[in-house]
């Protein structure tokens, strides 16, 4: 009975949060299919720890941290690099699943050009709306590291996007510049 309750709670949580997790994963990796892989892996890890963490105050934050660290760990794994190379070679058409050529593809391409930790920092800070301290906790690094990664990430995005003409009421010159 306890296992059934556990599984029911877990399934309900994942059903509610998977779409949101998938979006975060997509921003991290730039590929919906791989985002599904990351979400699947993260919720599997969540299940393993569910007995201990299901009652924590910030379960969303916990699973988001698992997701980010899964993403970063895969960047360091030789198997992930091996697989990514082949996926890149085999499935270039996947960019087509994002149909908005004005904004989404440009930003997606720029994000994908960032080193993985910079990308994770940008996503956590500006999509997940985390503070520097929260981002540092999620990534297991110092606040100084987060500030630096944010700064470098924003500068790199600005550089990558500066030459673009982006449909925008505010105009392209205001993109990520301050």
């Amino acid at each position, binding site marked *: 009975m306890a296992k059934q309750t556990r599984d029911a709670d877990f*399934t309900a949580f994942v059903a509610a949060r998977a779409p949101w997790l998938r979006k975060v994963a997509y921003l991290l990796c730039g590929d*919906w299919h791989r985002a599904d892989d990351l979400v699947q892996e993260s*919720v599997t890890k969540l299940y*393993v720890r569910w007995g201990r963490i299901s009652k924590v105050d910030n379960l969303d934050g916990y699973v988001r941290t698992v997701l980010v*660290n899964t993403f970063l760990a895969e960047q360091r794994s030789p198997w992930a690099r091996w697989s990514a190379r082949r996926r890149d*070679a085999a499935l270039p058409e996947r960019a087509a699943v994002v149909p908005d050529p004005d904004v989404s593809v440009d930003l997606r391409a720029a994000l994908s050009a960032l080193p993985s930790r910079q990308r994770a920092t940008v996503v956590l800070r500006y999509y997940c709306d985390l503070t520097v301290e929260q981002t540092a906790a999620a990534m297991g690094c110092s606040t100084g*590291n987060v*500030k630096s990664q944010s700064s470098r990430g924003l*500068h790199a995005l600005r550089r990558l996007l500066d030459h673009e003409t982006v449909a925008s009421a505010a105009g392209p010159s*205001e993109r990520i510049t301050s």
Partner: protein
Amino acid sequence: MNDPYDGSSSLSAAEQRLAAELTALADSPAPGMGSDTAWAVRTGRSRLLRRRLAALGAVTAVSVGAATLGVVWPEGGAGSTVAAAASGSGSGSVGPRVGPDTGHDPLVVQATFGWLPAGFDDIEYDKGFSGQPEASQAKAIGPKQTNTTTDRNRQLLFLTVHAPGVEPPLDLGGGLRYRVDTTPINGRPAYWVGSAPGNPAGVGDDRTLRFKLADGRWAELHASYMSDADNVANVLVQAATEVRTEPRAVAMPFRIKSLPAGLTPASASLGYGPEAAGGYPWTASIGFTLNGKWISVTAHPDTTPAPPTNGRVTRENSLLASVDVPEACKSSKGVKLCVSAMDGEAPFASIGGFNGLLDRVTSRGTDENAWTTEVLH
């Protein structure tokens, strides 16, 4: 003036715009969701079972291991990160066996570790990564990072050698760093890549030490997830002092005879130790291209990999494993050998498909003394 990256300050207009664009990107149309909660439950249960079984086995292992370590631990104690741990091969390097470049080994690295701190037991050699066919790297994986509340990451040391005549840049992409000169290494110039003038520390828990080699090339040691609590500065200096800088071919656990025409080696790697090899004692691979298509030969012991630690993703526990990668495999002398390609077998019909290549692969067994640097013929 507000620090724009300070969590206490509100977002600037530009940052708000970035946030909005990220939201728009995340909300863009997507294919149907591919994750499977029921699968997660089944796999999660399986991992729980494996973990419990592993814990039972560890009780015995720890008892025996502690007694052994009490005898052989280097001076400096079990917690020291600067205790000498060099236990390498006859070549003087730490880690898997290496030898002279034979011209027949696709995994030749420009430098190897001659010394590593205690606990850095896993080594990974890579060649041809990040889209750079000639780039090579040695990576050492150590204990869990300290000085953090999360302890998810392993301490890492990366060793690279820059090409002759290349002055490595201080702009590492997105941010200017600063040359902070330090005591010469083996009598030659050395400097830290600092985060500020006069500050040798890198960003966060990263440190980079560059040092000139006898032949004029620059070498670089980079530490990740290491802090002053890990004595990172002294570790890097000592490791740099004892780096072996002659090109070394890494012995591989298989040979490939009569390599088909057109098949070009494009990458190679050897992971040594469970943290570097996805839970196996070791894993090796060579990637080839044929008319622009990738095909890979991989090898690892034909055993069940150890459970992952600290969330490290392995081939077996990664969802990447659920990707249907076409492959053909065989087992020989305790080694599982596979040929695989994401594009499937069809592009490789001219070499006899997967089995055409697999038939040319000969296992050298699990005894590292039988491994070879005469890999391709």
